[in-house]
């Protein structure tokens, strides 16, 4: 079984290289689903000039690894790769990568979305945006809690 690897890093990442590494030597893979989150230049009606991402070292990795374990219980998947960047980011920069491999597409799609819904509300990251009016911490969205609730997980974050 290919590995699950979670990395928190300041450096950028390369989708093609990560997919190639995850597929390497695994001929059982018939589907690869990936998601990349990127920095928008507008948020809540104002321009965003830059973003700073803070996290809780140690807990972050543990939390995401627990999510991957849960994804493995729910879906027939093979490899999982998660990269989340921290530190200073600019509009259009990549923030987060989730790649899932499986034998068939349904499990890969489902597991990728499940992991992102889970990560948005349960992994200890915080975004601070620099706008023309100054720096501000981003508010959590109840819509993200609702997205996780669709999977039967009632773990409120925003309220």
């Amino acid at each position, binding site marked *: 079984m290919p590995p699950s690897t979670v990395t928190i890093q300041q450096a950028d990442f390369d989708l093609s290289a990560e997919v190639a590494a995850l597929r390497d030597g695994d001929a059982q893979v018939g589907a690869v689903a990936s998601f990349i989150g990127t920095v928008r230049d507008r948020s809540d009606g104002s321009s965003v000039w830059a973003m700073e991402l803070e996290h809780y070292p140690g*807990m972050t990795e543990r939390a995401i690894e627990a999510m991957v374990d849960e994804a493995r219980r729910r879906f027939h998947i093979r490899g999982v790769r998660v990269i989340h960047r921290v530190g200073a980011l600019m509009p259009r920069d990549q923030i987060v990568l989730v790649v899932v491999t499986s034998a068939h597409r349904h499990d890969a799609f489902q597991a990728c979305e499940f992991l992102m819904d889970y990560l948005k509300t349960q992994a200890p990251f915080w975004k601070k945006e620099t706008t023309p009016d100054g720096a501000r*911490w981003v508010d*959590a969205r109840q819509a993200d809690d609702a997205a996780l609730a669709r999977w039967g997980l009632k773990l409120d*974050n*925003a309220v």
Partner: protein
Amino acid sequence: MRIQIRYFASLREALGAQETIGVDAGTTLGALRDQLIARGGEHARCLARGRAVRSALDQVMADDTAPLHDGAEVAFFPPVTGG
């Protein structure tokens, strides 16, 4: 018993990154939050009941009922906004 408290994001800016304090045996995470609120000032404002504050015990999300232990690592932080 001695416990370490860590703060993140807006709470870190207001309260500092971490502190180590002594608490009575049997103290729960919720009771600790109430003790910090009782200090008044920025602690009372940032940790006030009714404000969205999340907590972790030993690097796992935890609620007010979680019992603390000697050497515990407790963290308070705002709702998370990664991804």
